[in-house]
């Protein structure tokens, strides 16, 4: 196989194979240097209880060979592909055209999912999980993708929303529909509170402060035992009702099943939750798209592009940043309230840094600022994560590999192009190749 490839390459560019061999040899050397101490030597407890060194040279050889041929294959493939750069423009066009029907298709699939035969409790729960992350991704996208403010503590707002609902519902007995806007408002308030001290920060500095903010919220939740229950969390959070009709198994007239005269089933509540998060996610999407066309949304994007130019144009940078933080946080709060009512139990464990990292990864992999890209990224990341459940601890490896792969193949995210919000005549997508890497 490699011989064939090499032969073809040889015909085109004689230098490629020699260079590839050299490159692969260096890679193998590096691999050997790494694997000899790490894999080659292993300490075991011997029969007499003493430590003894076991040598595993065969394993090292296999690993080094994998590295050698992997590198050789990669380099020759790159050589064969050659300068295929101009294709990106065509690819952008194909993606744009695909985007016009992929989005409605995904939406259609999401709407009918509960009624597709073979969809059980497991699929619905997974759907709810994916949609929660789609919503969180869209919410964080307002802050990171549109306003260009790198936020590593987004999970804090998710936590504020969840605890707001849990505390309001368990302490004052307020219903979900009253608590939902309250949770959003409280999260937005915390968003502004975070926004003030970080107004002058950008990039790495902002990321560090937001990271700390996320941790502060979590640590407060753990330690303020009298209010939050500390590490034990809050139990017995009321489940949502269908506009006042509880999902109960009794089948009485004042329950959901009884009111509509259908057989009581535990799936009803799951289907209801599914549609609830679908509507919440679509609301987030709708607001984001609307905002981008509004002066405020355009100011967010301008802020991401160039803060100094924004000042020169008379844009109130303070207000623009604070509204972005508040708006993003509000949707995080909504998602948090939903999470609390779905789980019925919350604890600080659900709001660790890894959650922030996953949400940010969804936004970045989706191509910052792209609504459909984020939805696909959430589906791939969360759905894919479930798919590889059987792999146990190797799951993280697949996960990491997939992320590296996406970033190698599409460095600006799955959908890196951006369509201008205003145009005279036909709209033209701005190709990913024109979009700076790592610059929202």
């Amino acid at each position: 196989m490699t011989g064939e490839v090499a032969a073809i390459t040889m015909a085109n560019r004689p230098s490629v194979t020699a260079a590839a061999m050299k490159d692969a040899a260096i890679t193998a050397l590096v691999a050997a240097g790494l694997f000899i101490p790490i894999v080659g030597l292993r300490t075991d407890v011997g029969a007499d209880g003493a430590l003894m060194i076991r040598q595993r040279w065969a394993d090292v050889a296999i690993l080094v060979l994998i590295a050698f041929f992997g590198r050789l294959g990669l380099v020759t493939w790159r050589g064969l592909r050659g300068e295929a750069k101009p294709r990106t423009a065509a690819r952008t066009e194909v993606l744009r055209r695909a985007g016009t029907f992929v989005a409605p298709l995904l939406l259609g699939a999401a709407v009918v999912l509960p009624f597709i035969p073979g969809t059980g409790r497991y699929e619905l729960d997974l759907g709810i999980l994916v949609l929660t992350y789609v919503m969180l991704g869209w919410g964080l996208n307002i802050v990171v993708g549109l306003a260009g403010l790198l936020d590593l503590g987004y999970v804090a707002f998710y936590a504020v929303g969840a605890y707001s609902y849990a505390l309001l519902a368990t302490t004052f007995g307020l219903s979900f529909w009253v608590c939902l806007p309250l949770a959003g408002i409280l999260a937005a308030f915390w968003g502004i509170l975070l926004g003030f001290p970080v107004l002058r920060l950008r990039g790495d500095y902002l990321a560090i402060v937001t990271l700390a903010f996320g941790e502060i919220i979590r640590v407060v939740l753990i330690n303020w035992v009298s209010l939050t229950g500390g590490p034990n969390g809050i139990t017995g959070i009321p489940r949502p009702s269908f506009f006042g009709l509880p999902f109960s198994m009794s089948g009485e007239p004042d329950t959901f099943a009884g009111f509509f005269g259908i057989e009581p089933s535990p799936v009803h509540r799951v289907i209801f939750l599914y549609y609830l998060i679908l509507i919440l996610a679509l609301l987030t999407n709708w607001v984001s798209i609307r905002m981008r066309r509004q002066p405020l949304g355009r100011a967010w994007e301008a802020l991401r592009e160039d803060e100094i130019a924004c000042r020169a144009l008379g844009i109130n940078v303070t207000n623009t940043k604070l509204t972005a933080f508040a708006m993003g946080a509000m949707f995080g709060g909504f998602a948090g309230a939903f999470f609390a009512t779905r789980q019925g139990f919350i604890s600080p464990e659900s709001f660790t840094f890894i959650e922030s990292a996953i949400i940010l990864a969804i936004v970045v992999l989706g191509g910052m600022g792209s609504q459909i890209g984020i939805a696909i990224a959430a589906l791939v990341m969360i759905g894919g994560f479930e798919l590889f459940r059987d792999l146990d601890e190797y799951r993280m490896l697949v996960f990491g590999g997939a992320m590296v792969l996406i970033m190698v193949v599409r460095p600006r995210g799955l959908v890196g192009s951006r369509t201008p919000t205003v145009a005279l005549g036909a709209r033209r997508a701005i190709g990913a190749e024109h979009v700076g890497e790592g610059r929202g």
Partner: protein
Amino acid sequence: MSAPMLAVDAVSTSYGAVQALRDVSIEVAQGEIVTLVGANGAGKSTLLMTICGDPRARAGRIAFEGRDVTQLPTHEIMRMGLAQVPEGRRVFPRMSVMENLLMGAQVAGHDPPPLLDQVFALFPRLRERQAQRGGTLSGGEQQMLAIGRALMSKPRLLLLDEPSLGLAPLIVRQIFSAIRDLNEKEGLTVLLVEQNANQALRLAHRGYVLVNGRITLAGSGRELLAMPEVRDAYLGGGH
């Protein structure tokens, strides 16, 4: 001459311990083109930015159309009828030309279409490029876009910071003739900061020379051009 449109009176500005401007006083009257020339680091851009309130003047007073703006926040100053074309153009690179222009109109809240026509009449190139991303324009086109974006707020005073920076001489001439047109036909008042002293002084009615944060010379453009010390220092005469 009635009260000047812009009056900068004994303004001092510092960056931390470094004093960038010392007792600078300049005036710009309605309908004038005034230029500020000086070497690198003389404080030209600092003066322009201080007028916009960022950084804030440590001492002195700045008045625009008779109103004291010294302590106003930047975004409020920029809404009073003055617009700035920042140094290095600073167009929004991922936004289309059209979006860039609309950003300029946004804060002032004027109806964009007639203003767009005016900008496109001044720089026909921008009309052709309106769907293109700001960052893909050439340097000259970006400068046109930056000026067009500033004009979208319908300013009475335009502050220009080194519009000739890094541009070919032909493009510089185009930009400067556009500035002259704006001044003569639209009556726009212009404060122009330039390193390209020769062309700036030819264009301007009056000029100031800034050296190490102080105004050392002032006069009409022609007078300054003729002065031996200006010729020696900024026009490369005799070197």
